[in-house]
């Protein structure tokens, strides 16, 4: 059993769409989980549908949504205070050192983050890369395992099949509830599904019912 799982993603809602089922499964087993959320998604384009947020109110709204989502998942949350869309311009080493300082305190056995170069959003790529560098700073004997999540369209073609495939349909209601907690971000997707007259739970299950990761190889 894992000792402590730390999730490192840059945006409020990355944990919901990407790993909520995996996280909730760990929590059901009694494993402590901490989410290190890099930014508040200040630069998000989704303002709700119909719009209820604007560029200036969005950070506080998303902060509240994030806190609510973490309550649904029953996990600890640390907001790291970077600014959305700027992570790739930060000094990589500095961000990695910052993350290492936190990880040293938390002593995780498993770290979940994005697969750099295969995570589509520049923040995902940059923060994933910094997280992987941070874990590299551990002595090999104490180094936690890293699960890296790829979301690029060609990741299977380029990297092969992910070695970790978690079927999360058993905790899917909680995953959906976590996504819904991010109302400002989920509204657009939900409206689209309603328009297409699809069963939201079934359609979401098909797209989001499996969470996949690559175990990072530090000796490669």
């Amino acid at each position: 059993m894992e000792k402590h799982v730390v999730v490192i993603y840059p945006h409020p809602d990355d944990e919901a769409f990407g790993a909520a089922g995996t996280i909730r499964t760990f929590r059901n087993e009694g494993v402590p989980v901490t989410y290190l959320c890099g930014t508040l998604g200040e630069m998000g384009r989704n303002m709700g549908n119909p719009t209820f947020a604007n560029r200036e109110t969005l950070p506080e709204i998303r902060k509240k949504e994030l806190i609510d989502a973490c309550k649904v998942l029953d996990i600890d949350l640390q907001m790291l205070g970077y600014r959305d869309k700027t992570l790739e311009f930060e000094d990589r080493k500095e961000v990695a050192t910052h993350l290492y300082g936190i990880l040293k305190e938390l002593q995780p056995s498993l770290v979940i983050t994005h697969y750099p170069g295969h995570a589509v959003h520049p923040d995902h790529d940059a923060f994933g890369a910094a997280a992987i560098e941070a874990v590299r700073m551990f002595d090999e004997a104490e180094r936690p395992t890293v699960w890296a999540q790829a979301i690029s369209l060609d990741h299977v073609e380029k990297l092969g099949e992910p070695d970790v495939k978690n079927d999360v349909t058993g905790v899917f209601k909680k995953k959906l509830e976590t996504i819904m907690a991010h109302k400002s971000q989920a509204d657009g997707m939900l409206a689209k599904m309603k328009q297409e007259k699809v069963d939201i739970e079934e359609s979401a299950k098909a797209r989001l019912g499996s969470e996949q990761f690559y175990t990072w190889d530090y000796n490669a």
Partner: protein
Amino acid sequence: MEPIQIEKLQNEIDQFANKNIYVHLETTNGAYASHFDNNAYNVGAFIRNAKVSFDHGKVVGAGTKYRVGLKLDIGWIYAEGVNQYEKNENGQLLMAGHDREGRLMVALQLSESPFQY
């Protein structure tokens, strides 16, 4: 935010003329544009808390399509595609354009004090 009424917005813009103000200007089609559409390009530009002063500003347009231009001492600022605005409780003038799904495409914001975050 509410749909633009040109006289009202013009009046709000005038309040900021010939003062030292802070500007937020951005445009974006999102970080996922080329992920969802192979032929699309991701483009965007962003500046926050640029300190400027403008001689005069003007909103032009009709219906749901407006442009706002600010004439500076030695330059210009403009935003195209703005369709909603709001004067918030901090006295900041927020102008933005959204697509049909409520996603922000362009924003121009004026404030007498620096924007937060």
